[in-house]
């Protein structure tokens, strides 16, 4: 019986060998993948086992950490004035993952980033707990407050940039949410989170309108159209007649007129007057005369059709499409399939204000190790030059006329030069939905150009004329600009 016995011995040996091979496969080959699987709770347990680093605005933390006794996670994220800052910070929740700055800088905030290796090693030897680093933002607390309070209970967004550097000074979106309400993992947190979801709340409080939502830019886009006219030499003098009829018949159509809102002096108007009164006829004609390719090229210099505008939170792509002639003429006045994010329109205003040079928008100034050493410092980067300096000067003077004598008078600030452009974008099929009220502007002081702002309000029924942007959105922009200038003094 020994021969079969030896074979059984070999068989049993193979069984054990198979087990050994399998555990090597699981614990060696697949180990990393299993260890970092998002559903492996150890990942989250590790993340919340130490207090997270903070997100800093004006030297003060707008986030914090508190200990919890709910289950495995020792620390929970807290937010100071969470509703106001949510579009900047995003959220970090024990149960619902994280997003925006909280997610993008997770390695720094939890202290696991490779660049914190030294500080971690020191902690290990001194027996200290692993600490997270901080994220220092470019935001201006006063400007943010002005933007958030200005929006109030209206639906909309505000973006303010420093035109000289591209630093984001304000980033507000309403209605907003408080990320503290679902930072933990209790039933109450789950309830709060579910109540904020789109299917339970049609107002979409968790939508970051400033970065992630595109709107038809309406008349504010006329600034880009004017820039295209100047850059392409269609007109060189803002005060020369433009030879444009009223109404302007859209090209390639049998008889489809492009009209102006209200009774305004647009026939054969100068560029300055056309911008001042927001003449659809003049700018529709410019767009048609330049053609789709040139219009598209100019819009792209301002940042349209770029899917990778990272602040570092990625903005939705603003679109100036390839289109047929009548559609292209409509796109020239910010209608048709022309779509822009509030950030994009703030970039337009800031490029004009900065002498034609467009800076890359950013909101993280630096990443700081727990011992306050700077791990990474942002240096302003140029994104493009949509305008020659002399054309930028011309456009500035035109935008300043809009605020001084035109549709944007409610944005005037004493002792400060303000340039701007209003807009009311039609929305919905046959224009049946509520229009969007827009305002883009910049402010210049003796010291330079500290701020450019874009405001959009998903409007109410009362807004039907082109003054809407000036009535509703301009005062908010004014408040933000004042806050920034005051902070500089």
């Amino acid at each position, binding site marked *: 019986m020994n021969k079969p016995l030896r074979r059984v011995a070999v068989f049993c040996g193979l069984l054990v060998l198979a087990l050994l091979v399998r*555990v090597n496969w699981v*614990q060696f080959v697949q180990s990393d993948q299993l260890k970092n699987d998002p559903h492996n*709770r150890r990942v989250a347990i590790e993340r919340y086992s130490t207090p997270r680093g903070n997100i800093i605005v004006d030297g003060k933390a707008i986030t914090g950490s508190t200990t919890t006794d709910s289950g495995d996670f020792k620390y929970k994220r807290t937010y100071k004035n969470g509703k106001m800052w949510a579009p900047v910070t995003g959220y970090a929740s024990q149960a619902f993952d994280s997003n925006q700055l909280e997610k993008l800088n997770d390695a720094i905030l939890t202290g696991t980033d490779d660049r914190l290796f030294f500080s971690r090693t020191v902690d290990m030897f001194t027996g200290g707990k692993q600490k997270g680093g901080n994220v220092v933002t470019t935001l201006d607390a006063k400007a943010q407050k002005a933007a958030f309070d200005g929006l109030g209970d209206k639906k909309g967004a505000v973006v303010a940039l420093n035109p000289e550097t591209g630093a984001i000074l304000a980033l507000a979106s309403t209605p907003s949410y408080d990320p503290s309400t679902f930072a933990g993992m209790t039933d109450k947190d789950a309830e709060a989170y579910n109540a904020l979801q789109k299917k339970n709340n049609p107002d979409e409080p968790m939508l970051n309108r400033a970065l992630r939502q595109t709107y038809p830019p309406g008349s504010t886009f006329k600034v880009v159209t004017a820039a295209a006219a100047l850059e392409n030499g269609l007109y060189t003098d803002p005060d020369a007649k433009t030879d444009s009829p009223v109404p302007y018949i859209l090209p390639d159509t049998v008889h489809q007129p492009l009209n102006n809102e209200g009774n305004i002096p647009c026939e054969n108007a100068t560029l300055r007057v056309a911008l001042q009164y927001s003449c659809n006829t003049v700018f529709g004609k410019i767009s048609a005369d330049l053609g789709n390719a040139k219009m598209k090229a100019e819009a792209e210099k301002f940042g349209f059709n770029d899917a990778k505008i990272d602040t570092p939170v990625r903005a939705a792509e603003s679109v100036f499409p390839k289109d047929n002639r009548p559609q292209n003429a409509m796109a020239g006045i910010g209608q048709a399939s022309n779509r822009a994010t509030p950030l994009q329109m703030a970039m337009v205003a800031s490029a004009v204000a900065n002498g034609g040079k467009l800076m890359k928008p950013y909101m993280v100034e630096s990443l700081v190790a727990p011992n306050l050493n700077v791990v990474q410092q942002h240096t302003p980067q140029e994104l493009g030059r949509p305008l020659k300096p002399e054309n930028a000067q011309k456009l500035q003077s035109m935008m300043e006329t809009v605020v001084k004598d035109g549709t944007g008078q409610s944005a005037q600030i004493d002792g400060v030069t303000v340039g701007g452009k209003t807009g009311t974008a039609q929305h919905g099929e046959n224009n049946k939905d509520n229009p969007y009220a827009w305002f883009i502007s910049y402010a210049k002081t003796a010291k330079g150009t500290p701020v450019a702002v874009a405001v959009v309000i998903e409007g109410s029924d009362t807004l039907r004329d082109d003054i809407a942007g000036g009535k509703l959105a301009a005062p908010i922009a004014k408040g933000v600009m004042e806050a920034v200038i005051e902070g500089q003094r």
Partner: protein
Amino acid sequence: MSSTTTTTTVGTFAAPSRRNTELALLVFAVLIPVFAYVNVGLAKDGSVPAGALGYTLGLGLLAGVTHLVVRKWAPYADPLMLPIATLLNGLGLVFIWRLDQEPKISTPQLGGAMAPGQLMWSTLGVALFLGVLVFLKDHRVLQRYTYISMVVALVLLIAPIFFPARFGARIWITIPGVGSLQPGEFAKIIIAIFFAGYLMVKRDALALASRRFMGMYLPRGRDLGPILVIWALSLMILVFETDLGTSLLFFGLFVIMLYVATERTSWIVFGLLLSAGGAVAVATFESHVQVRVHNWLNPLELQNGGVTETAQAMYSFGSGGILGSGLGQGYSRLIGGIAPKSDYILATVGEEIGLAGLMGILLLYGLLIERGIRTALAARDPFGKLLAVGLSGAFALQVFVVAGGVTGLIPLTGMTMPFLAQGGSSVIANWALVGILLRISDTARRPAPAPAPSTDAEMTQVVRP
């Protein structure tokens, strides 16, 4: 043939008893769990656990007593099996105690702390082990109980049907005041005794008196009949009790012992065909088998938005990596319920002592199994050979089915990891199993009685005509 001198033959010289080797190994088998125990305490609370001294003395005492009994009653027994069993049992106690420290999986509803109970069952198991060595002077005595053991095995297998199912399987019998027993664990030993006794008698008939059918030798019904009936009956009962692991174990046991007894490879083919047919049939009718197979093929899949036990076990292994998180510093409690202490204890092993530790544990099992088969090789009587290979084979299959299931090599079937996992019946039965194997090995390695002086041995006188 000189190669057979140390394993099978009757030699007049004594094989070395190796009792001192066993003693030295036992010292390690006690010290390693003690260090592990202290390690858990230091990692969890930063202090040496209060029971450290008691645990050391208790484990040491058990090991000492077993060693002395083996020295006295089974002096030629295999020197490796006792230390390995002691080490595995000791480590199992440490792991269960370590999991007791997790409040979430040690609530009163889940049975609370389980290490004290396990210690008591282990002591009982060791007592049974000693009882086997002291009272079972010769394993051949068991041969007399061939048919009684058949009846007992059937009773043990049928009994759980009359008790309510627990944790999804009907494999327990509840005795008021004592607790629950898993008769399947004992049935495994008793069925091996029945198979060994029956096959020893019938093996020639099974191997030779057969008809040739389609290139295979089919035995006569009257020879194969009884054993096939018992096997089919037990299999059906087990399927009815939804205890797949044990069905597989019994089937494997049956095939291995039949193959060893008849020395005919056709039995393997026959067995594989039967098992394939059985597996397909069971999988078609039993929905929970389909669930198990599905979980095996998609280990990380979410169910109802939640992570499954299978996935949690895989995460445990993955997070453990090569060296493990350290004793007491893993999160295998995430598997939830009492599973981490019973079926899934290997997940804790893998996470906390890593790939290195887990391979060590698997090698210990492998060593124990191969020592058992070596005992079968060395045994001088066919009954001893069959019993030893049956017990070792059952043990090997159980280890493979459990460890393979938990690590995702094969579909999961609920069974306990011998010695390591929490479970009174399991630890008692496995100590008895090792006791019987030691008894057989003692008989096998014992020097044969010197041949009686015989006149024939004298110089032959040559008578010349």
